[in-house]
């Protein structure tokens, strides 16, 4: 008989906060599994990994992770994380939030953090809707999809998030669906290793609001659809990866390049201009335990 083992995700979770608030068939938890596998692979000191979320269903990820975790305000995870990282450069800072939080209310921060190459890994779980508030239209809701605030179907052009992030200068851009668990874990691992603004979009099912309202079945049906309709195109031109309603989904790693991070650019500029007068920022030391 074998010895009893622990679920390998357990050490990464606040078990006393489970079960999660997520609905049956929601894909967010699946992405969390992948994140924990990536953390294991990365061999990072978990005490030095901080996770920052905004508001919404995916915004709850921070609260379930047994890391220094920050559940901030709606849309503002990225500037919080930028301040955290600038003030404590020893940290590996991960932003984990949803499509509405990051690309609608937080859209301004998203594009500017990518532009300035803030040293953040941003995981965007895109379920095409605001789940927490009852299924309203987001900047990623495909045209014709029904949401509670587009009862006759959405009619606005959507954000192609990988293309947006590519255009803004993100150094790493990938998209997967919640079906691509191994690829997500690998991408997150690459993202954890890399410096600069890294963006991973994960298409995930929202069975209760997006799927039900659009008569697309349950979470499992959506996962099967991802399996059937996803096309892996690593290195694809991000202009070509826009999403249409219930159509094919181009997934893969689209961008992987190097660019000085915000901190590096800052340091270089001040060193060049101020020379010996430049006093670089030092990370606040670990407090002594009494």
């Amino acid at each position: 008989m074998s010895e009893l083992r622990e679920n390998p995700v357990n050490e990464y979770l606040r078990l006393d906060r489970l079960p999660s608030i997520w609905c049956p068939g929601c894909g967010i938890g699946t992405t969390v599994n992948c994140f924990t596998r990536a953390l294991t692979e990365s061999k990072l000191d978990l005490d030095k990994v901080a996770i920052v979320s905004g508001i919404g269903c995916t915004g709850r990820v921070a609260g379930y992770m047994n890391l220094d975790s920050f559940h901030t305000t709606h849309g503002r995870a990225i500037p919080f994380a930028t301040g955290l990282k600038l003030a404590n450069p020893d940290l590996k800072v991960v932003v984990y939030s949803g499509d509405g939080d990051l690309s609608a209310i937080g859209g301004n921060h998203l594009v500017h953090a990518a532009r300035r190459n803030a040293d953040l890994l941003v995981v965007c779980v895109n379920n095409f809707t605001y789940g927490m508030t009852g299924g309203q239209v987001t900047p990623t809701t495909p045209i014709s999809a029904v949401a509670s605030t587009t009862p006759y179907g959405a009619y606005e052009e959507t954000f192609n998030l990988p293309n947006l992030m590519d255009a803004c200068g993100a150094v790493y851009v990938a998209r997967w669906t919640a079906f691509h668990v191994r690829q997500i874990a690998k991408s997150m691992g690459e993202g954890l290793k890399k410096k600069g603004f890294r963006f991973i979009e994960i298409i995930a099912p929202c069975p209760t609001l997006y799927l039900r309202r659009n008569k697309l079945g349950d979470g499992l049906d959506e996962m099967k659809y991802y399996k059937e309709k996803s096309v892996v195109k690593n290195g694809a031109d991000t202009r070509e990866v826009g999403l249409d309603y219930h159509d094919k989904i181009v997934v893969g790693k689209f961008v992987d390049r190097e660019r000085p991070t915000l901190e590096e650019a800052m340091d270089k500029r001040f060193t060049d201009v101020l020379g010996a007068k430049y006093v670089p920022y030092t990370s606040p030391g670990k407090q002594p335990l009494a």
Partner: protein
Amino acid sequence: MNADPIGVLTGSHYLDGDHSCSEGAIAAGCRFSAGYPITPSTEVVERLASRFPRVGGRFQQFEDELAASIAVLGAVWGGAKAVTVTSGPGFSLMMEHIGLAAITECPVVYINVQRGGPSTGLPTQPAQGDMMQARFGSHGDYRLIALCPNSPQECFDLTLRAFNLAEEYRVPVVVMLDEVVGHMTEKVVIPPADQIEVTPRRYTSKKPGDFKLFEAAEGSLVPEMVKAGDGYRVHVTGLTHDERGYPAMNVVAQDKMVKRQFAKIVENADKIITFEEKNLLGAEAVVVSFGITSRIAEKGMQLAREKGAKVGSFRLITAWPFPEKQIIELSKKVKAFVVPELNMGQMSLEVERLAAGRCRTIPVLHAGGTVHNPEVIAEAILEAVR
């Protein structure tokens, strides 16, 4: 502990209020600032942007005030002392994160250089119309500390004190300048670093596992702090939370959290509140004023005294918490309070509430754009003592 000498510009300077705030922040040990340009406050962050790379600090201009006002909170949890600075519409945009700072008990400083409003209002001209917003501007119930300098020297002194109070009580502190104080240039004396008292962050000595981020020790109302990266694996949320910081959305947790957060300000009010009294002995009227208006009121009082009025002065240095006891005591001794302010009646409401009919309260209101004519204040004083 004493200030870090690297940052302290010891000596006599000719500085405006905005720049003096920057020096106060640096002396206090602030090494992170986030900002977004807005008149008439921009000079504070401009000076920090110039000074920080020479003293080991980091300034980041963000895309808007929403970002700046939460980046400073991230920086605090990263272990830095942090400040952001704004004015007018920017202060409105920052309200959500003043609320987040309050509920997460984040020691941080916001500086607001008040200009005429509402909305874009008078970007280059003074007002004192944000006093109630400083107290109540974010939704929900919370208490914070607000300080009102009336000179460039006090901009230095009170910005320094704002940082110290923020650490002492784990609370956001707002420094409420007005455009005139922000832009007036006067002598500012910065003491040697070893004569500047700086309150360090109250980091816990407990080990991870024994520590709760929102549990105050026996006999204290203020929990100890940690920073990210030290192994405490804290959870910080804007949701109502329990002592561990876990979301706890129920009546009991809400009651406990809100009441302790109130109590740490209310029960320590005597230690927080500062004010300046002058000529109160035998006064029949007392002018209650703050910021630039207190300096105009000096002239008004002088004019009134020349006409025989017995008038004293009570200057608010701490606007919030409000010096309730002192106003109540004075209200038993005088005929009237005269309250000049560059708004349509904010602090005068507080004075009137506390006077509770024991004496009259005569607001001297001005919609802003400039300062009062001292003669108007003098007339109000003369009416008060009649």
